[in-house]
């Protein structure tokens, strides 16, 4: 029986420490892990908790991230609760197995400290790895600070393992900017957390030898399409379970989570749409604009997959100009948020001015001043009802200004 870990009402934890405690409290059966910056302290702390007697489960040290995710998928198929952590190149190496986890309906929880992808090699935070995995059929939850990384990790188990969902879930936090930044965190007690997450309910467990099953089968044109359609259908419908778990968490902690995180959008003329720590920084910039009488707001993406189209359209329906901010090199097109927000708005008969800003690659600092400048461009567009700036701009870039269209 694992020892109880004494926690203070308020801890000062960085995002990694917060997530490692959430994993400890979730009573996971199997963690298979391979360390990589900046997520390393998550599994390092976890293995220390285990060595010190605070965890009952198994920890498998593997030789690569591909094996880490394979170990989780195999343990999940056997009937175990599983989780791991990674970043960047490690995430890239996991990609093949990410699709296996979702296709096999194994509810693995993957905590990601998001980091740039090489080349050039860079250990700092951006969303390249998050974007690489966004079509892998996982639920994607996004934290903006260490408290949220902790909360969402606990909630991820409950969402992923729900019998109406049974899909793997990722919890994202910005590498270093959140993963290595210590802030106030109010943890649950071990007992409260365990009760909230609940007992693991195995489905089609391979260790249930009285009911033999096969996992990871081959289906060709006869059944493959039906399997993938069912998987997509269940991912789309997981919204309802996510909302229910968010509500249950609010009842327990008074901390509120929604599919999208709206800040002063009720009367906003202009809005920034972003993911991660930038969502919080943008609130400071929005308040500065509001001091001048300019109605600025922020929409934070809390759930990237399933993408909350309706909630986004509702929140932005009266906004005149929108900045979609992508922290990932777009590789020859617009950033993902530009494409998806544009699709959501046009699909609902709305046509606000929408601009795309590429920012913060490889950990480049995103300053309040840059965010204020983005709002000024939006304000300029909203007042004249004219798109006065290029559709895609790079901000915080040294050298000559780079923009397209």
């Amino acid at each position: 029986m694992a020892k109880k870990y004494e926690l203070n009402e308020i801890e000062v934890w960085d995002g990694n420490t917060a997530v490692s405690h959430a994993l400890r409290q979730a009573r996971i059966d199997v963690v298979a892990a391979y360390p990589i910056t900046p997520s390393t302290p998550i599994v390092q702390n976890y293995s220390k908790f285990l060595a010190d007697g605070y965890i009952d489960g198994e920890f498998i040290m593997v030789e690569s991230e591909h094996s880490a995710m394979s170990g989780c998928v195999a343990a999940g198929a056997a009937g175990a609760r599983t989780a791991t952590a990674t970043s960047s190149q490690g995430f890239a190496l996991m990609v093949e197995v990410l699709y296996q986890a979702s296709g096999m309906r194994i509810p693995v929880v993957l905590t990601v400290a998001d980091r740039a992808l090489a080349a050039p090699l860079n250990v700092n935070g951006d969303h390249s790895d998050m974007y690489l995995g966004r079509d892998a059929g996982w639920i994607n939850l996004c934290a903006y600070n260490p408290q949220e990384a902790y909360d969402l990790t606990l909630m991820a188990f409950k969402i992923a393992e729900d019998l109406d969902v049974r899909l793997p879930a990722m919890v994202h936090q910005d590498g270093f900017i959140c993963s290595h930044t210590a802030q106030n965190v109010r943890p649950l007690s071990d007992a409260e957390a365990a009760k909230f997450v609940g007992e693991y309910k195995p489905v089609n467990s391979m260790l249930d030898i009285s009911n033999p099953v096969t996992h990871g089968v081959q289906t060709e044109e006869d059944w493959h399409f039906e399997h993938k359609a069912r998987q997509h259908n269940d991912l789309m419908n997981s919204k309802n379970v996510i909302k229910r778990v968010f509500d249950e968490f609010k009842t327990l902690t008074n901390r509120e989570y929604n599919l999208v995180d709206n800040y002063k959008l009720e009367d906003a003329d202009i809005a920034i749409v972003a993911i991660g720590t930038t969502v919080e920084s943008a609130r400071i910039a929005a308040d500065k604009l509001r001091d001048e009488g300019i109605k600025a707001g922020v929409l934070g993406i809390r759930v990237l997959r399933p993408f909350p189209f309706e909630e986004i359209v509702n929140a932005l329906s009266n906004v005149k100009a929108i900045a979609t901010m992508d922290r990932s090199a777009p590789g020859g097109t617009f950033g993902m948020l530009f494409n998806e927000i544009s699709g959501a708005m046009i699909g609902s008969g709305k046509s606000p001015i929408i601009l795309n800003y590429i920012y913060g690659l490889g950990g480049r600092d995103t300053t309040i001043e840059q965010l204020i400048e983005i709002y000024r461009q939006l304000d300029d567009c909203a007042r004249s009802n004219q798109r006065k700036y290029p559709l895609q701009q790079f901000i915080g870039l040294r050298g000559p200004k780079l923009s397209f269209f």
Partner: protein
Amino acid sequence: MLEIRWHSRAGQGAVTGAKGLADVVANTGKYVQAFAFYGSAKRGAAMTAYNRVDDKPILNHEKYMRPDYVLVIDPALTYTADITANEKEDTKYIITTHLSKDELIKSQPKLENKDVYVVDCMKISLDTIGRAIPNAPMLGALIKVSGMFDLEYFQNAMKRVLSKFPQKIIDANMAAIERAYNEVK
């Protein structure tokens, strides 16, 4: 919002110092943030660490900072690092040195007409802890200069933060904090 920038070498304990300070401050009901610039820095490389303290939740995630306090815990960084970067008119500098304040300012003229305090954290940590780990004495100096806490309160709070260490190390750190508190000028 109170903002602090630490100048240190990797391995001298600036990150631990910043997190320890954040821990103590958070226990008084305030909101804190502690972070550092890492990159691929190796032990001995110049680095910076940061604290933010506020009465409301801290939403600012920019690395850019105009510090109220600049803490220099390695003596050579006064000359090789840009310790006055993004300073405010009333930024206070607490600098580790064996020099007097006048000698220090003469040797680094960009500190002229600034609010400078000196303390020899290196000697204090060698005398008390037995190793050149200047973070604890710097915290003692900061508490004195800022008036943030009284010495006894801060020492008791730090005892909690250090509780997982052997008593000998806790006692040495308490002595280091107290000496720097009394010696900073």
